[in-house]
């Protein structure tokens, strides 16, 4: 699964946010923050790992999850680019509205005599 599909799910976004905030967390740690079952959470963790959003490390007896900073930086960069595109588009919309406003007659105002 690609990273955006993985991120489209709100539970997975919450998991990612949780792990980003707390650093290394085990499946049990993560599950305790959610009302859904541990197997369901494990499934989400698997998706996040496949999408390179989470990294799993074996430490002693535990499997600990951390966020993949490189992937998150790439997404951040992508979001920034998307922002520029939209910003440029909205500049244009601003111009169009300025022009349209000159000839615009409001609907709900009282009738002129």
């Amino acid at each position, binding site marked *: 699964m690609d990273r*955006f599909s993985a991120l489209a799910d709100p539970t997975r976004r919450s998991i990612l946010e949780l792990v980003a905030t707390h650093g290394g967390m085990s499946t049990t740690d993560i599950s305790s923050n959610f009302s859904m079952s541990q197997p369901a959470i494990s499934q989400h963790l698997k998706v996040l790992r496949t999408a390179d959003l989470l990294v799993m490390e074996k430490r002693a007896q535990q499997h600990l999850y951390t966020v993949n900073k490189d992937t998150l930086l790439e997404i951040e960069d992508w979001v920034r680019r998307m922002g520029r*595109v939209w910003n440029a588009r909205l500049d244009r919309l601003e111009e169009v*509205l300025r022009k349209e406003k000159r000839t615009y007659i409001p609907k709900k105002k009282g009738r002129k005599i």
Partner: protein
Amino acid sequence: MMNPIHKQVVFTRVFDAPRELVWKAWTDEKLVQQWWGPKGVTNPVCEVDAKNGGLIHIVMEAGEELGSAKGMRWPMKGQFVELTEPEKIVFTAIAINNDQPILEHTTTVTFEVQGEKTKMTVEILVTRALPGSENALAGMQAGWNQQLDKLVEFVYTM
């Protein structure tokens, strides 16, 4: 610092125009055609059937101003999911690059009255991205960067 994982991508801007007019700018295809492609980009195809289930099909094409990117096309095809006049528009769409779908997204636009002005919020939730989407966007932006040395403030609420 923005947090890219908490929510979807959100942009807001306040326009000095009444809400009905901002709504019209989104739902009248003749107007959409004038602003969808930013500076240096035209929209040779712009079909906006603003009703529930109606289709939206816009093709952006890079013009002279974008130098080497000239002639590049970025089509988008989708469908309106919700139109609540004059408050909210939701549509889903697929961005296409070189005849390949690269990105599926759901875009929610809301319009709020702020005195004489209108606050518009655009939320984009990318639901699927296929390989190549990042390059396509990079190509589009490379052109714009030549033009946009000053960027008006924008807000990420993330």
